[in-house]
């Protein structure tokens, strides 16, 4: 748990306790660089942090991901350091995948559920050592993680504020890192981790990302954040490095078919309505569930739901005719019966297709896969153009790039 420095006296304490009122949005360790680059002054709140929605141009930022190198600040991502002799056993009980199979200096994508098998969040688990892990996710979970620690010899420490994170994604990302002096990074296979010296400390680089492209994620202590940024920026100049905001990243992640908690599904802790919670199998995460490994939270409920066929939803990728994004459109079967909802949709610049992620109510998406339609309302100068467009279930990712996995990556 994070220690709190005790206040000097009661008045100071009260003042300190309300400082958040004066700082409505926290600044990330990279804020000084982002604000200098921001031409649009377009910000949003990411878990209470001021984060760029876009910096100069959404489309050009997107093409930095696909054509050169895009630098994206992921510091607001919630990060927990989990360590101790029982860390592996603890995480194996907490999360769906078998942590025993996760090697040191490896990352895997996973998710975790409550006792009823309802997903609390998804995220990436980094194994930094035999007994040391980092869990990265969208939502905060300290109370759940601490309660889960009962009976385990494990230390849980939230390090969201202490650790700064950057994603460097795109075809020239490896070349940029090499130019910055991180030699050896080219040997990292997808989901590998390595540490490199930076200034007086180290930077942890993993070959991971949210874009389905060649890319890396870098973590350093807060104090070294700006110098790391500058090092990459300098090295990336000739490799077309661009800083990007969330809008561009979101386009890339939809192409990659990745889901976002509380966008594509409602997490069990955020859901107010009883029918909004989701089991892994209902949001496309069935492949994470490992019934062979030791017991984990939600196991019984998930397996029971499979056995009794009580799963109610399914998450699918859709390809929709036309070129108007079907965001939040209702999905119909036979143009009449409601079958689900689109949670994310774009015209994919790389796939050149109109794509979407949708949640369907079973048996749609399981038994009835044809004759699906989406109803798109396009508001154009205060008038809705209503369209009923044919939708086809297609596999995700929508965009598959050979360079994502090629090791060593090509030098562009």
């Amino acid at each position, binding site marked *: 748990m994070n220690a709190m420095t005790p206040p000097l006296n009661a008045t100071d304490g009260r003042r300190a306790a309300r400082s958040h009122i004066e700082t409505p949005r926290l600044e990330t360790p990279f804020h000084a660089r982002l604000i200098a680059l921001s031409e649009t002054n377009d910000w949003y709140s990411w878990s209470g942090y001021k984060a760029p929605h876009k910096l100069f141009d959404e489309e050009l930022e997107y093409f930095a991901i696909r054509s050169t190198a895009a630098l994206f600040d992921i510091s607001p991502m919630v990060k927990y350091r989990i360590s101790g002799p029982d860390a592996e056993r603890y995480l194996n009980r907490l999360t769906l995948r078998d942590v025993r199979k996760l090697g040191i200096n490896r990352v895997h994508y996973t998710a975790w559920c*409550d006792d009823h098998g309802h997903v609390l969040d998804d995220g990436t688990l980094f194994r930094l050592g035999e007994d040391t892990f980092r869990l990265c996710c969208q939502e905060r979970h300290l109370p759940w993680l601490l*309660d*889960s620690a*009962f009976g385990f010899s494990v230390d849980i420490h939230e390090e969201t504020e202490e650790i700064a994170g950057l994603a460097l994604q795109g075809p020239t990302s490896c070349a940029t890192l090499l130019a910055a002096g991180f030699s050896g990074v080219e040997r990292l296979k997808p989901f590998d981790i390595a540490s490199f010296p930076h200034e007086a400390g180290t930077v942890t680089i993993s070959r991971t990302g949210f874009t389905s492209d060649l890319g890396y994620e870098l973590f350093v202590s807060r104090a070294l954040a700006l110098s790391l940024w500058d090092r990459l920026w300098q090295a990336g100049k000739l490799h077309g490095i661009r800083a990007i905001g969330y809008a561009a990243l979101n386009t890339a992640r939809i192409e990659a078919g990745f889901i976002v908690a509380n966008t594509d599904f409602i997490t069990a802790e955020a859901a107010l309505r009883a029918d909004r919670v989701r089991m892994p199998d209902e949001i496309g995460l069935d492949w994470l569930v490992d019934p062979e490994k030791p*017991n984990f*939270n939600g*196991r019984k409920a998930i397996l029971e739901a499979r056995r009794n066929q009580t799963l109610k939803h399914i998450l699918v990728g859709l390809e929709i005719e036309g070129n108007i994004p079907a965001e939040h459109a209702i999905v119909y079967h036979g143009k009449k019966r409601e079958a689900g909802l689109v949670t994310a949709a774009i015209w994919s610049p790389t796939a050149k297709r109109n794509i979407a992620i949708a949640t369907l109510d079973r048996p749609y998406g399981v038994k009835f896969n044809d004759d699906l339609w989406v109803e798109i309302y396009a508001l154009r100068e205060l008038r809705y153009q209503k369209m009923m467009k044919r939708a086809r279930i297609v596999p995700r990712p929508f965009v598959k790039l050979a360079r994502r996995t090629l090791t060593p990556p090509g030098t562009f």
Partner: protein
Amino acid sequence: MTSFDSASKAYDAIVIGAGHNGLAAAAKLGASGRKVLVLEAANEPGGAMRGREFAPGFRSAGLAHLINRLDPDVTRDLGIRLTSSTAMPTSVLDGDKQPVVLHGAYGDSIDGVSADEAAAFIRMRDKLIFQAGILKRFLRRASPQLGAIGMADLATFASAGFGLIRKGRGEGRDFLRMMLMNVADVADEYLEHDRLKALVAFDATLGIHLGPRSPTSLLGLYYRLTGEVAGRAGGQFIPEGGMSAVAPAFIKAAEKAGVIIRCGTSVGRIVADRGRASGVILADGQEIAAPVIVAAVHPQTAFLQLVDPAESGTGFTRSLRNLRTAGNVAKLDVALDRIPSFLNLRPSDHAGRIVLARSMEQVERAFNPAKYGEFSTDPVMEIVLPSLADASLAPSGACTLSALVQYAPHKLKMGWEASKPLFLKIILDTLERHAPGISKSIVAAHLSTPADIEADYNLPGGHWHHGELQADQLLINRPTGAASGYTTPIEGLYLASAGAHPGGGISGLPGWNAARHILSGARP
């Protein structure tokens, strides 16, 4: 349920804990032909009814000092005979005025109050017994499961409904009004007399962390009135041979059913893998396999100590850790060189139950400090003289006194180590006020606080009911939602102690119900 008769298994079922509930469960399972092993950590079976010598020549028969809810179906079914020729009267003393003495089952006749007041008491009692009778229908069955209400549950609901209608709409309405009231408001509605009010306030709250004015405190009185003696609700007795005869009766029933009881055998771990229990590992490392494990121990012992936390869900563990199970009752055993004499109390009434409580307000004020982790400086208590029913407990001519004293919180702010002598002195001074001269006849006094009870009886919190018996921990929430109805999230592992439905006291119901549930083969 997995087949009981597979020859490869040495035991069909292992029962952890030889309290009377563990023994009742074992006896019932054994009687059906199952091979049953009971494992008990202490050197003797009996659980909270484990007796001991607390002073040379003086024995205590255990924590429980009288019976008021031993279930007749349980004893009949298991062939247990525990009877008494005399019903115990209850005397309420305030150390000054004439005692109020209730005879028969909860005051069939009352000495020391006006005829009007006695009639008012009977009116209230009959109403409460009627209402308790509605709840009683739920005691002998597993509590209904949310989302899986079966025919039998519906039948119970229906019979409860009919029970209400039979008495007319007004009674039904009154039940729904009163159910979650506090006992003080109900007593005020019916009664005038201080000590009658004090008695119902005391009986409603004994063993529960509530004062008479706390919301829902009436439930405790209902619970008491669901108990019966010789077919009459609300009475109490000490069987022939005294309370020392109770544990042996259960042991005999178990042994007759072929059950093997191993004492001095502490279970260290319940073996479970991916939601299925398969045996136990003893503290000394020995592993014993069985397809059915019955935990007749405190639910926290079962799931926070014996089952690997990795085998439980975080939410389940959290709810068990949040179980309210801090005991409030201290047990005093006193060795006396002669039979004491309480002020104005007839000699024959000394063999009954003696309650020291002046008024409802005293009970309430005794509770107040307990809220803040302090003991009562003016406590209320229930006294029995056990050696009058069982001469073997004391040398001839001498006497033992047992008192259950409220309120003594499990976690005392000042720490029991330092404060126990003071609390003991307060209790003994109280005794002296009610029985002048008793101090001089004291040979030894042994006080067990809830902390002592926790240590001596392997009982987390030292709680009477293995967990508060309050609205949030009853029926489908006893001990907690996911482990109610005797089944648990772990297949093959069942709960059968006072921590399970319907709760504590010497009733045998949790154990017997659990065994019946297992035998019914109901899926978890």
